C-alpha cells in the first residue's frame, strides 16, 4: 500500500504563466516599457517644439537638445561630480542598511530596548536634514563624512522601522511549530524571523535608496553654498550662479537618472531575493 498523489490535487497546483514571449518579454512586459517611453518621447518633442516656436532663450528654458549638448560638453566635470554623489549615496545606503538591520534585530530581542530607543530613531527621522546639515558640516571636518552622515540620517529610518515590523510579523502557527521543536532563540531568529522580515527589509531598502540620494543632494546644497563640495548638487548651484541653465538642467537630469537607476537596482535585488516565494515577486503567475 503506497501513498500517491491524486490527479485532483496535482491539477490544482498553480502553474507558471506560459504567456508568449517576444525577445524575452511578454506582451505586457513590452507594454510596460514602451508605453512610458512613448509618453516621454512625446513630452520631449513637445518641449523642444514649445522652446523653438516661442524662441525662448536658453538661459530661461533650454530645449532637450540643448540640454543634451550641455551634458556632452560638460561631461568631464559632471561625471566627476556624479561619481562623488554616487559614492556618498551608496556608502550612506550601505551603512543605513547594515545599522538598520542590526538595530532592528536588537529591538526584536527585547521590548525594553525597542521602547527605549525607538523614539530617538523617530526624532532622527522627523528632524529636517536641511536644518541639521550645517551643524554636521561644521562639526565634521571631513566633508565627505559629513555628507555621508546627512544622507545616512535620511536613509536609516525606513530600513529600521520596516525591518522591525517584519521581525515581529512571523506567522503565529510557525512560531508555535518552532516552539514545539524547542528551537533556540538564535534558530528562531535565523530560520523564521529574518526570512519573514526579508520582504519588509527590501521594501525599506527601496525607499531608502531614493532617500539616501536626496539626503546626499540636500547636504551638498548646504555644503555647496559654503563653497565646499564637488557633487552634482554643487554643479547645479555653480551653473545657477553662472546662469549656465543648460548645464543646470544636465546636472538635474543626471540626478534624476541616478535616482531611477537606484530604484531599479533595489527593485531588481528585491525581485531576485524574493522571486521564489513572495507574492510581490510572483506577479506573472496565476
Amino acid at each position, binding site marked *: 500500500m503506497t501513498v500517491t498523489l491524486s490527479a485532483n490535487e496535482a491539477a*490544482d497546483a498553480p502553474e507558471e504563466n506560459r504567456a508568449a514571449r517576444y525577445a524575452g518579454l511578454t506582451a505586457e512586459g513590452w507594454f510596460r516599457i514602451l508605453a512610458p517611453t512613448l509618453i516621454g518621447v512625446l513630452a520631449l518633442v513637445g518641449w523642444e517644439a514649445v522652446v523653438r516656436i516661442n524662441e525662448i532663450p536658453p538661459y530661461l528654458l533650454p530645449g532637450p537638445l540643448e540640454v543634451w549638448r550641455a551634458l556632452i560638453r560638460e561631461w568631464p566635470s559632471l561625471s566627476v561630480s556624479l561619481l562623488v554623489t554616487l559614492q556618498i549615496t551608496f556608502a550612506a545606503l550601505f551603512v543605513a542598511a547594515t545599522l538598520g538591520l542590526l538595530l532592528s534585530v536588537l529591538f526584536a530581542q527585547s521590548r525594553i530596548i525597542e521602547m527605549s530607543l525607538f523614539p530617538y530613531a523617530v526624532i532622527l527621522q522627523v528632524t529636517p536634514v536641511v536644518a541639521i546639515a550645517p551643524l554636521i558640516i561644521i562639526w565634521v571636518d571631513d566633508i565627505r563624512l559629513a555628507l555621508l552622515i546627512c544622507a545616512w540620517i535620511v536613509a536609516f529610518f525606513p530600513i529600521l522601522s520596516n525591518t522591525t515590523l517584519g521581525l515581529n510579523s512571523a506567522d503565529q502557527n510557525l512560531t508555535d511549530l518552532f516552539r*514545539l521543536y524547542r528551537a533556540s532563540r538564535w534558530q528562531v531568529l535565523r530560520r523564521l524571523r529574518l526570512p519573514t522580515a526579508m520582504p519588509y527589509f527590501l521594501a525599506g531598502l527601496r525607499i531608502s535608496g531614493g532617500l539616501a540620494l536626496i539626503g546626499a543632494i540636500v547636504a551638498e546644497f548646504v555644503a555647496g553654498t559654503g563653497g565646499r563640495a564637488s557633487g552634482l548638487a554643487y554643479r547645479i548651484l555653480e551653473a545657477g550662479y553662472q546662469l549656465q541653465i543648460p548645464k543646470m538642467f544636465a546636472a538635474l537630469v543626471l540626478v534624476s537618472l541616478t535616482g531611477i537607476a537606484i530604484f531599479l537596482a533595489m527593485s531588481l535585488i528585491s525581485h531576485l531575493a524574493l522571486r521564489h516565494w513572495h507574492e510581490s515577486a510572483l506577479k506573472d503567475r496565476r
Partner: protein
Amino acid sequence: MVPATVASLEGVTKRYANGTLAVRGVDLAVQRGDFVSLLGPSGCGKSTVLRMMAGLIAPSSGRIEVAGGGETGDIGFVFQEPTLMPWSSALKNVMLPLRLAGMARAEAERRARAALDSVGLAGFEGSYPRALSGGMKMRVSIARALVTKPRLLLMDEPFAALDEITRHKLNNDLLKLWEAERFTAVFVTHSVFESVYLSRRIVVMAARPGRVVEDLAVDAPYPRGESFRTSAEYAAHCRDISQALDRAMGT
C-alpha cells in the same frame, strides 16, 4: 501489545487571560497506537486540548502527561493551515524539525526525502509552497510532522480547508500512513463523517464551557477503504455520532 497510555489529561481546565473558560475538567487517556478524534462544535475547546497536549499552552489547573514528551520530535503537530515556510522548498520545510534538533544536513535531507516520498510527493522536493496545491501543501505539512518519527501525532482540523475529493484521498492516505508507521493519532475535526471514517475512538465535546460529554468506539476493522465509506455499518456509526453531537449541542 499491552495498551500503554501515551497521553493523559486529568481534570484539565484552561482559562485564558481574558477570562474565557476554554475547557473545564477534561479527563482523557489516549492509548498507544490508537486513532482518537476530538469532535465538537466551534468553541468547545478541542483545539485548546490539542495544543495543551503539545505543550504549546499550559493548563490553568489539572495534570497533563505525555509519554516521551521530554524529547523533541516525539510529538508531531499538523495545523489547520499547512503552515509552511514560504521561503523554503518542500524539502527544506520537511528538514526543519531535524535541522532544529541539530541533525547533519545530509542525514536530515535523506530522511526528509523519504518522508516526502511516503506522502506521495516524490519529485516535488524542490517546489516552493506557492507552486503547490492546497492538498499538496497539507501533504508536506504531514511529512514534516512525521519526519521525526513521532510517537504522538496531533492534528488540528488539517483537512478542513480542502475540497471533498482531496479530503477523501488524504483521509485514505493518512490511514495508510497510520497503519504503516504505528504512531498514535489525535485528530480534531468538525466533521462527523471524517471522524467515523478515520478513528477507532471518538471523543465528543460540548461548548461553553468546553468539556468531554461522550466517548464512543468505532469498532470497524482496518484497513478501511471506499467499501467502508458506503457500508451500512459506516452509516450507523455516523448516525450514532451525529446524535451524540446533537445531544452535546443541545445541553
